[in-house]
């Protein structure tokens, strides 16, 4: 699937298929070790959480609000010509770092760092120079993802307890380190994460590129009507999970998340998850993770 999918400018081509292939590839059958997080981690325990698509989309929307991060993606990645390929590559990377053995995670991170070496330029909006390898930008991308996973789980998945949220933020530090952020810079608790996000807010802006990519993610062109309605539920979940400041910047006016609406969004996520499970190897990969989590829990 991943090899010969035709890239195109409009459709969300094979997103489920390619995300699934990436996920499966990241979870080996006979791993040499438990990777950087391991079966006792919050990440592994929440591995099959329904809220993951909301987390991923929310993270992208927040990341896009940093003009330099957005400019780097906009000017160097082929997201316009192959948006699904870009998303699939990101989910493959996240899966490998989260569940893969250490050597695989290191290889994937080294590859990302190599790509980043060639990504630099000037942001047309702010006129500032940027480089993708800049730890400050990498940290922003990292923090947005970690924060989004927690926010999405709180709204649509199994809400983490405060100690679990702290553990999650702390265990994810290694992921930032792998791509080149010095560990000392990376927030290691939920409070530190919130403080860090607040500290970056003065630098954020909704650039035209950010608005365009958000528009694409929330309403991908080329879906047919009924599918688009299901996607709209998930998009509503993403907007509901955004912090107020991000909604204001994007000029979204989120609908109130009533219990009934939350249920509907969870149901749409459930349908999406069912499709994901239907992809080859996904169920087995999940079961491998779940079995190791259970074994770790039993000690």
């Amino acid at each position, binding site marked *: *699937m991943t090899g010969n*999918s*035709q890239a*195109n400018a*409009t*459709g*969300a*081509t*094979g*997103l*489920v*298929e390619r995300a699934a292939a990436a996920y499966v590839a990241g979870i080996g059958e006979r791993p040499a070790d438990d990777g950087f997080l391991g079966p006792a981690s919050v990440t592994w325990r929440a591995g*099959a*959480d*329904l809220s993951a698509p909301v987390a991923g989309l929310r993270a992208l929307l927040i990341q896009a609000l940093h003009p330099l991060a957005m400019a780097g993606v906009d000017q160097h990645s082929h997201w316009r010509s192959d948006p*699904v390929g870009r998303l699939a590559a990101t989910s493959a990377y996240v899966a490998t770092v989260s569940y893969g053995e250490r050597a695989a995670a290191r290889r994937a991170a080294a590859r990302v760092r190599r790509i980043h070496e060639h990504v630099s330029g000037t942001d047309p909006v702010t006129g500032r120079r940027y480089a993708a390898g800049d730890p400050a930008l990498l940290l922003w991308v990292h923090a947005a993802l970690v924060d989004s996973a927690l926010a999405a789980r709180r709204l649509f998945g*199994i809400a983490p307890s405060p100690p679990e949220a702290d553990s999650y933020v702390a265990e994810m530090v290694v992921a930032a380190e792998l791509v080149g952020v010095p560990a000392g810079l990376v927030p290691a608790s939920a409070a530190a994460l919130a403080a860090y996000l607040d500290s970056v807010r003065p630098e954020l802006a909704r650039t035209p590129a950010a608005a365009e990519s958000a528009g694409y993610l929330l309403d991908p062109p*080329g*879906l*047919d009507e*009924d*599918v688009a*309605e*299901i*996607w709209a539920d998930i998009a509503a979940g993403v907007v509901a999970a955004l912090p107020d400041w991000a909604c204001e910047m994007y000029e979204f006016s989120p609908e109130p998340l009533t219990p009934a609406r939350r*249920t*509907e969004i*969870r*149901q*749409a*996520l*459930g*349908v999406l*998850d*069912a*499709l994901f*499970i*239907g992809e*080859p190897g*996904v*169920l087995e990969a*999940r*079961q491998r993770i*779940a*079995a190791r989590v*259970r*074994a770790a829990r039993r000690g």
Partner: protein
Amino acid sequence: MSQPRPARWPLLAGAAVAAGAAGLALLAARRGAKNARLRHGADAGNARLRHGAGAGNVRLRHGAGAGNVRLRRGAAALHLVARGGARYAAGAPRLFAAAGEHRERLRQDLALETAQDVAETLGAMKGVLMKLGQMASYVDEGLSPAVRRTLARLQDSVPPMSAELAAGVIEAELKMPPERAFARWDPEPIAAASIGQVHRAITLDGRAVAVKVQYPGIAEAIAADLRNVALLRRMLRITAPSQDVDALVAELRERVLEELDYRREAASQALFARYYAGHPTIRVPAIIGELSTSRMVTSELAVGARFAELAGWPQRERDLAAETIYRFVFRSLYEVHAFNGDPHPGNYLFHGDGQVTFLDFGLVKHFTAAELAPLMQMARTLCVLGDPEEFRRAMVTAGFLRADAPLRTEQVVEHLAVFYATIREPGPLTIRPDYSSAVVRRFFDVRSPVSQYVAIPRSYVVLQRINLGLFGVLGELSATADWRRIAEEIWPFVRGPASTPIGEAEAAWAAGRPAPQTVSELL
């Protein structure tokens, strides 16, 4: 419920479920709208459903295997009666020794440990999809590979309950732990059920039983998800845009909601068990009422060969098993006024010599005499009287055909004959694996000029599962019998003579039993 609404003809429950499932696959496929391989696959599936020729009778081979059926006639009848008494021979002593005998490979290492695990696994629509998928999963034809895969995967995705979680359900229901409620309790489940699992136990008075235990919280989760009609409707509409999705959703909701309350299942099974008590080849495990509640059903334990094992049995055995299944379906319909809407291969156990145990009465539809009369009239006018005009009138009366349909009667008969192909003529006939799918294709043949004037009144929707389920199973067995003669034995308007050894044994059984009760008399 409002006034029953007739659904369009293709809106049979089973196929509708398949359509819903296909909707899912299309969702996957069309999400990548330009993805050549997937899109092609899904559309091809549709094309097969809509444009396939429904020449079902072509697939039936007349005259095949005539000798097999009539084998060992008189002796076999006696033998069958004798075997009827030995019904639960495999009983308590072997119960725990036989661990693994028919134990499904359940992923105990992934067992759900808390009600929250259950909600995560089966909530958010996945229980609903799985339920619908389970109904459709044995109808191969018309489902694209992507749909089949998604449905099968969903069913595989539900791990068993941990021993503690299952024991917790028993304790909540019976106000005592399973070790006290039963003389012996096997904490490891022997089989998965769609929204529960089956444990073996021995009752305090020494009976070997199977206890179906429902996942805690699942009934509430599925009931809540079924309230989101909008999402169900959307999923169905994606593949079945021209159909009356509302009627379909209503019928599916009703059936699935019924299945969530195990008391209804227990009552249905008790009804069938009472009716078939002493039958020479049909076995229905008795219900232990005092150990059955809305979330657990306890019945006598049955041990036998699974459907898959039948593949290795001689054809003669397969034919006999098929005959028993066929008799069960139509006898139940005409005598008990009930139809088990889940004629799934997993719901039978086979014991040889045509003896079959029928399991799982979760999806039983009960009919009134008034609802059955038009069906009988249709079979009688077409197959017995051979009077096409009367047949047409009967269809109109039953609500299957619009009175003002501008069609020639031959067209109507030609279109619908496929549904009666097994019983229009006497003589041995082999039901081929693709017969059921040919019937399904006929339902979807929207190009036929007839299709726009035919409809299935809602109370008959579940009956269409005869075509999808029963004939699917008989086709899997490539079963040969003189189905017409068997039908004549059972048809109340013919009451024909026994036509097979099983028929003779059955006649002897029927002569000695009181008139059947209907469920309303029992409840």
